[in-house]
């Protein structure tokens, strides 16, 4: 199966082309085509996952490249795919969510005038996202990075007649471009020092010391900037809530489960290039994000916006998790989050579909009308709130554990754990606030309530599937084993052994083999086995295990120390688990106290801390700040430049013309023709001097003779003396 992996992105791409071109004329407007292709992708992904899972090798790699672009003999960029365990998991996540969203959309988008276009866009998104997951170099991930941005733009602005939707699409694209600017700089730094862009080649080059120190940190932060944009991290998180203008399935697929997680995936993919400083930067960005977003989520009343901010907050968790060294934790949260957040979003879509409103203050008691939606939504909420036995508990707990462990080693950075813990409570609170206001209590708007009904099966089946994936048993066990933190490439100890990464096979036709890089110094380089992709080497797992839980500073330390680390990690895990369960419970409790039992009136609380409430309600005024500074600033600057261009640069020659005016004034022949600024400047000078000169031609004969004689005299005098 894996040998056909390169086909995966092309299936949705073909359906994109068909749907965009002739979709309107196809039966059912081509929705089946998109669904079929993505389902095929799902099947292939399952196949691949099965192969990977069967191998059960933390170092599994399948790497194929074909030459794509070359200039001279030094500049070479290859196209290819790289499948390791992370990829396999990610493929599965993407295809599952995508398939379910396709299915859900059939019902949700029913009757839309641009139905076929919607499925075409979903297909191009699936293509881009799968390409992003499979790409084996920074260059290609950047390509697909932009392409998912495009599909996001198209889908957010799908209902472009709404100005807010069109605005949101534009905002998303441009904000992402800001992040991509950093990404590009990161790529450029790496390329200019290492001369390669394939992940393996880059790690190898960094290991050889071609790029190190501050520049490496900068490169890491640059690449991470891409993630800041795509994963809506502070300070570029502003686009994601606005992106909710898109159809809800899109929000679920792109802006909750997959595309926004691409940033996290990117960080995971290039993890070895991050220096400890870069990781610390990443962790802080994650922390700030998760906190800010959660505080905002508490006050929002739009069901999708609450979910959007919760997405931002959860992405912050993932990023922070990666930043503090919880590699596995961050990626695990990515996977679990994809399921429960997609479930939440699709659930919200089901609700919106039913009541035609997004304001939770107009809902209430919907559990009676929409039991399936309610149950699935509740399960997902339990998952996100970190209730034990649900997937969110499993992964968030790992993140908090990693943060605590990091804090134990570096007490000055304990804030990661504390902030994360506090926000976990906050998350539970606002999520249950949402559930209670939506599904419990009494109907607020009877008209809407009466209209509400359970969604058709095409919509609730995906909900059920996703809800089923919200339980933790799906993930526990294999996840931590298969997905291991890679060694930092910059750590000299990790690369003191000859770099064993086997260069990928080249050829015009995709060739394959399993390359097994060394995760630890103790390992012998494995001979390249040009054969089938699943070449397990279990012997490596011991050493791999040892470095698994280690913090960023722990690489390359002795096994004894590794044992100590393991102990520390275990301890941290326990603490984190207890405290997170406690805090989560408190949050849920508070939500019930306030919104279910009504013992505390939220309006009064809000009034009591009005400035804070306003501040949060207005999302910390980020949009206003950006609007006032960056956007207005650049617009004003561009207007200035346009003015400058029209008046100064074009006028540079005009300036000469002004000089000409002055000169002609000096000779007493001021000529207002010159002032005509519209005329090209050089011509103006010419004309003005021409008109001065022509005044000499008075028509009076004796002037002519005078000039003749005078001219001759002057010539004579000049020549004579």
């Amino acid at each position, binding site marked *: 199966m894996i040998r056909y992996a390169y086909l995966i992105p092309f299936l949705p791409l073909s359906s994109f082309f068909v749907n965009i071109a002739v979709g309107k004329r196809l039966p059912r407007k081509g929705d089946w085509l998109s669904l079929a292709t993505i389902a095929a992708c799902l099947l292939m992904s399952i196949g691949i996952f099965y192969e990977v899972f069967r191998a059960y090798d933390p170092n599994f790699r399948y790497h194929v490249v074909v030459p794509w672009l070359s200039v001279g003999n030094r500049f070479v960029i290859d196209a290819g795919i790289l499948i390791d365990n992370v990829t396999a998991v990610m493929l599965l996540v993407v295809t599952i969510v995508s398939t379910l969203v396709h299915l859900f959309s059939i019902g949700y988008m029913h009757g839309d005038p641009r139905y076929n276009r919607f499925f075409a866009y979903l297909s191009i998104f699936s293509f881009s996202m799968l390409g992003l997951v499979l790409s084996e170099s920074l260059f290609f991930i950047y390509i697909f990075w932009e392409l998912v941005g495009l599909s996001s733009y198209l889908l957010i602005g799908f209902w472009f007649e709404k100005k807010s939707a069109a605005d949101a699409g534009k905002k998303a694209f441009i904000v992402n471009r800001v992040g991509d600017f950093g990404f590009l700089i990161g790529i450029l730094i790496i390329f200019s020092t290492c001369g390669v862009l394939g992940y393996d080649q880059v790690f190898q080059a960094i290991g050889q010391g071609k790029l190190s120190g501050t520049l490496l940190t900068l490169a890491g932060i640059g690449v991470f900037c891409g993630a800041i944009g795509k994963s809506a991290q502070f300070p570029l998180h502003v686009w994601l809530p606005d992106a909710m203008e898109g159809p809800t399935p899109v929000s679920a697929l792109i802006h909750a489960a997959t595309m926004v997680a691409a940033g996290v995936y990117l960080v995971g993919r290039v993890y070895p290039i991050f220096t400890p400083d870069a990781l610390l930067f990443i962790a802080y960005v994650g922390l700030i994000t998760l906190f800010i977003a959660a505080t905002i989520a508490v006050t929002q009343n739009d069901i999708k916006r609450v979910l959007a901010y919760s997405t931002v907050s959860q992405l912050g968790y993932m990023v922070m998790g990666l930043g503090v060294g919880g590699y596995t934790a961050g990626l695990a949260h990515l996977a679990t989050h994809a399921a429960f957040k997609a479930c939440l979003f699709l659930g919200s879509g089901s609700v919106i579909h039913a009541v035609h409103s997004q304001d939770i203050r107009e809902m209430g008691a919907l559990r009676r009308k929409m039991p399936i939606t309610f149950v699935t939504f509740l399960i997902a909420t339990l998952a996100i709130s970190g209730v034990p036995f649900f997937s969110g508990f499993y992964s968030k707990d790992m993140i908090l554990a990693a943060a605590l462990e990091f804090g134990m080693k570096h007490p000055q950075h304990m804030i990661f754990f504390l902030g994360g813990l506090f926000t976990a409570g906050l998350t539970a609170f606002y999520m249950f606030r949402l559930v209670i206001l939506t599904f419990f209590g009494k109907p607020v708007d009877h008209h809407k309530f009466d209209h509400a009904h359970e969604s058709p099966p095409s919509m609730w089946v995906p909900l059920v599937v996703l809800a089923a994936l919200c339980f933790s048993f799906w993930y526990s066990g294999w996840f931590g084993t298969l997905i291991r933190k890679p060694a930092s490439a910059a750590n000299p100890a990790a690369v003191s052994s000859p770099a064993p990464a086997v260069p990928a096979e080249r050829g015009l036709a995709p060739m394959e083999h399993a390359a097994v890089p060394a995760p630890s110094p103790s390992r012998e380089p494995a001979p390249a086995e040009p054969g089938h992709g699943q070449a397990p080497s279990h012997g490596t797992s011991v050493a791999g295990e040892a470095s698994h839980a280690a913090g960023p500073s722990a690489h390359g330390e002795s096994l004894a120390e590794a044992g100590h680390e393991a102990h520390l990690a275990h301890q941290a895990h326990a603490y984190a688990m207890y405290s997170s369960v406690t805090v989560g419970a408190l949050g849920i409790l508070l939500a019930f106290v306030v919104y279910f039992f009504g013992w505390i009136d939220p309006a009064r609380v809000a009034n009591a801390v009005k400035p804070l409430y306003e501040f949060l309600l207005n999302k910390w005024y980020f949009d206003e700040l950006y609007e006032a500074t960056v956007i207005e600033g650049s617009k004003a600057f561009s207007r200035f430049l346009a003015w400058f261009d029209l008046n100064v640069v074009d006028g540079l020659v005009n300036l000469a013309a002004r000089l000409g005016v002055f000169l002609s004034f000096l000779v007493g022949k001021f000529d207002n023709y010159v002032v005509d600024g519209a005329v090209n400047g*050089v011509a103006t000078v010419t004309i003005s001097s*021409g008109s001065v000169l022509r005044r000499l031609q008075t028509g009076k004969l004796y002037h002519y003779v005078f000039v*003749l004689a005078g001219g001759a005299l002057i010539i004579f005098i000049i020549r004579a003396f």
Partner: protein
Amino acid sequence: MFLGNLGSLRYFLPEIAVTATILLLVVLHVASNRRTSAAPALLSLLGVGTAILLVGVSPAGGGKSIFEGMAAYDGFAVFFKGLTSLATVVVILMSMDSTELAGRSQAEYYIFLLATLLGMFLLSSATDIVMVYLSLELVSIPSYLLAGYLKGKEDSVEAAMKYVVYGATASGVMIYGFSLLFGLTGSTQIAEIGRSLVAGKATLPMLLAAVMAAVGFGYKIAAVPFHMWSPDVYEGAPTPATAFFSIGPKAAGFAVLVRFYYTVFASPTPGTGIWHLTTSVDWPLLFAVLSALTMTVGNLVAVKQNNVKRLLAYSSIAHAGYMLMGFVLLSSAGIEAILFYLVVYLFMNLGAFYVVVLVGNGTKGEDIADFSGLGSRAPFAAVSLAVFLFALTGIPPFSGFIGKLYLFAEVIHRGVYWLAVVAALNSVVSLYYYARIVKVMFLEEPKDTAALPVPAVTRAMLVLLVAPTLILGVYWEPVARIASNSVKMLAF
């Protein structure tokens, strides 16, 4: 080495043909009552045609001094004779077309025209200052009459008055300079004068003589600051006469300028094609400055003109400036460039005037505004005029570019970069006013949309003028060869 009078006649056939034609015209004028018939024009065509033929078949070998040293028979003179008579043919045809001249006495007009031509023949071959003065006056005096030929038209008479006074003064100054030269050397033969001056240092009288001679020649080629008569005269004179002035006397002026200065104040370094100054009178620098001034003033003032004839007058001043560049370089390639330029200038300038005559016939006006919409009223004439104007600007693939190329090339080759830059910038300026005419012809909607009739003969003439302008822009080797052969000048 000097051929006697009788022996010289063999080398004087074109002049004789022209003289005979003039005499015949006088007879015709006296004998015929029909003063406006086409006979004089046809007769002059015949005469000039014969002259061209005689120039063409004139005995080879060159390098003869005829009439006891008064004139030279050399490639240089032959070239100018051919050039000026060619110009005269075109002008005669143009005059036949012009309604300005219709109804006026024809024979007199052509007598003056041919007399001027005779003067130009002599001027381009004169090797004695007496001869120079004589032929200069022979060119000038009929020109005055041509300028004032439109009896009753105030402009024309005013032009003639200015022309005659200015011309007489300029030639007076020149003759005074000649008298000083004669005093310094005791000879009237320019070769002799040159030899006598070789040893001498630059005395004040010598300088004075050089400058005063420059006044006379400068007036003839209309170089700044001796150009001021030309715009007024060009505007006032009948258009065919203006066309004639802008090429014929100017070319002859260049001929005598080159011959005089190169013989008197310089001498060739054998085998190199390079001249060196024999006296310390640094006239090349002087004329380089005049050249820059001339082209700049001509172009700048032209920009502001609204009368096409006047505009072309200034443009011809500017072109004299370009040609002067070749004069200052003391190299045969420089002179070659002038000769080449004169050939292409002949076609493009006369062509432009031809269309002006055509439009003047149709609209009775010569303002730029009268050309508006010509592109649709008379497309062929308009396209031809555009070709001529762009050729005058010096844009490939028209011949004017090649002419400029030769001039620029030699200037750069001799290292006078500043002059090259000035000239280059001037070309850009010139585009502006030439394009103004093109603009009104093609880009503006005409006030009057009636088609302008273009007679078949005129059309044929325009073709005959456009063709060389185009062909010489693409393949000019033969003309270049003729020019380089014609540089061989008598110098003894």
